[in-house]
């Protein structure tokens, strides 16, 4: 698992970590400015970067590296993961378009299948063309059942049917794919709330997980996305995707700090198994080297 994360973040780590170490051992007056650059290029954002720099100004340069790690890890570890039991356990996946929601569901489905769970997918994205087919392909690939629907159908009704199906077929896990659209679209949020309501009526604990999928290449806008979805739905976790490239996903630290929701998994590739549980220490280590 660690290996994969390291592979995935190898490029990021090399650039950030090596540069930081080089910068720090050199002890030149431009030190803080260069650290600032590294932090910004990791997408940590203005606020967090400025906070970190302020902290660093109080300590000698040889402690910089540890302090940066410490600050980032403490933010990421500062939120608790609360898992809820249920049968079926209902997961609702939300996020803006193009972040990799459907793929993430496929991967989490695979993971749950490996644990021997019976998994049902629900294709509640009745908006984007191709969404139904895409999830269906994933269901076949990982051996999950699926409830499909028509384009334009009411996602709440699909969620309702899917829950019934999960119950009757004795499923352990129900993974719900939702329409990805920009978080600024008011109707989208209403639609999400309705899906949640429908499920809560079936079981007060459901959805047991409401997971926001965030594209690791996203910049500061990830914060707006997280805030909007959290405000509307109350998130239980975050999945950060596309971390196998050059993007560093640093914005997630700010997101966690701001909304207090833990990162649960990270996506590190396009394969079925390219999803790993999030570990703050490893993430930061891999990021900074």
């Amino acid at each position: 698992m660690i290996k994969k994360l390291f592979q995935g973040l190898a490029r990021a780590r090399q650039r950030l970590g090596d540069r930081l170490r080089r910068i720090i051992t050199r002890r030149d007056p431009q030190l803080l400015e260069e650290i600032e650059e590294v932090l910004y290029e990791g997408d940590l954002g203005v606020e967090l970067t400025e906070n970190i720099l302020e902290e660093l100004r109080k300590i000698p340069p040889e402690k910089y590296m540890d302090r940066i790690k410490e600050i980032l890890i403490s933010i990421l570890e500062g939120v608790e993961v609360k898992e809820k039991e249920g049968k079926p356990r209902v997961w609702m996946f939300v996020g803006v378009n193009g972040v990799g929601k459907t793929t993430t569901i496929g991967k989490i489905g695979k993971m749950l299948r490996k644990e021997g769970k019976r998994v049902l997918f629900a294709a509640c994205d009745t908006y984007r063309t191709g969404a139904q087919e895409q999830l269906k392909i994933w269901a076949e690939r990982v051996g999950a059942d699926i409830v499909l629907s028509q384009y334009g159908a009411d996602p709440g009704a699909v969620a309702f049917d899917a829950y019934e199906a999960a119950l009757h077929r004795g499923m352990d896990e129900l993974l719900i794919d939702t329409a990805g659209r920009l978080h600024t679209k008011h109707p989208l949020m209403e639609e999400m709330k309705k899906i949640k309501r429908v499920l809560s009526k079936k079981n007060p604990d459901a959805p047991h997980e409401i997971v926001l999928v965030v594209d690791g290449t996203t910049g500061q806008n990830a914060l707006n996305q997280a805030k909007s979805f959290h405000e509307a739905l109350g998130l239980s976790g975050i999945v950060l995707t596309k971390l196998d490239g050059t993007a560093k996903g640093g914005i997630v630290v700010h997101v966690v700090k701001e909304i207090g929701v833990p990162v649960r998994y990270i996506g590190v590739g396009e394969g079925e198994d390219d999803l790993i549980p999030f570990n703050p220490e490893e993430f930061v280590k891999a990021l900074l080297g």
Partner: protein
Amino acid sequence: MFEGLTEKLERAINFFGKKGRLTPKDVKQGLEEIRKALLEADVNYKVVREFIKMVEEEATGERVLKSFTPREQILKIVYEKLIEILGKHEPLKLSRSPSPIILLGLQGSGKTTTAVKLAYLLRKKGKNPLLVPADVKRPAAFEQLRDLAARYDFPVYDKRLPDAVKLSKLALSMAVLKRYDVVIFDTAGRLHIDEEMIEEARKIRDTVNYDELLLVVDAMTGQDAVNVAREFQEKVGITGVILTKLDGDARGGAALSVRRITGKPIKYIGVGEKVEDLEEFHPERLASRILGMGDLATLREKAKEAIEAEHARRFQEKMLRAELTLEDFLEHIKQIKRMGPIEELIKLLPGGKEFARYADEKMLKKTEAIINSMTPEERRNPKIIDGSRKRRIARGSGTTVQDVNQLLREYELVVKLMKEMKKGKFPLRFPI
């Protein structure tokens, strides 16, 4: 709901003061604020540094124009510089028939949607485009393009082959035979750039003798945008950029980075979910968005067309006297609505996304219903609305007490803001 706007106005007035020439201190101070704004907008750190340096040199010593504060003067210089760097809209090169256009980009950037939008735009200009799903890898990529295209009656090359290069070649021959004059290739995206993808893109590029090789970039992209742009530019060589997802609240600083790195023009921007939501690129609009100023110029222009002078005058008067009633509130929402597609318009305002909830038809109807269910007295003096009145209003308007409460709370906020304006705390800088 007004926090964003308030903050901005507050910061804006901190700089009011002396006139004369811009001193190095003025410039430094003003630019520090702009530096942060650019970084918040996801402009690449190095690009920001370079940009700030450039402006610093130009701005120092410049005469502060009449009716401008030093801060405004700096902002003006920055704004103009940004526009200059962002470059002008350039039309597509369509040199022959059929004219091949290749779309490149990472997965999730919006290539497929953009392909159909582009086809739509070209058809409006009298062209007859063919769409080619050259992404043979992603599950359901073919279906997505086929179904989306079918919605608008666009022909799609529907032969399915495992080899994207061969497929592209065949599609092009068919286009020649069937006399399509533009062929749009929707190529495979990857989660990130890899050799396989680049190789495939290169082969398609060499096979189809393209007119345009357009890179599709998600406006929400962070610092990674420079890496993406550089790789595509160096390894495939693009001719232009399409920026997508500008209908959200992303500031779109990635555009500046991409433009700086590639030197290629931004050709179009995606501004909505509908097929017609692909627009020509206007540097002024993007520049003010990146700076977080809202697009004041466009707003003024649109407002002038639609808002009735009388209404504007009365509204402003009432705002200044802090006497706005719920009736005015409603009327104002209606007026703004008359100015055009409200979602678009509202986003142009500073702090616009906070208003965007009113842009929704349903929301507006709800607001209207609630206010209509009030007695004239209640509308003029909402303070008298107690629990039982709220229940009656909710029943009458088919809403809930929570809805009524929410409206009243928001109204209170507006009133509060107006009172602050009245005290002269915030200058009114554009005709609301």
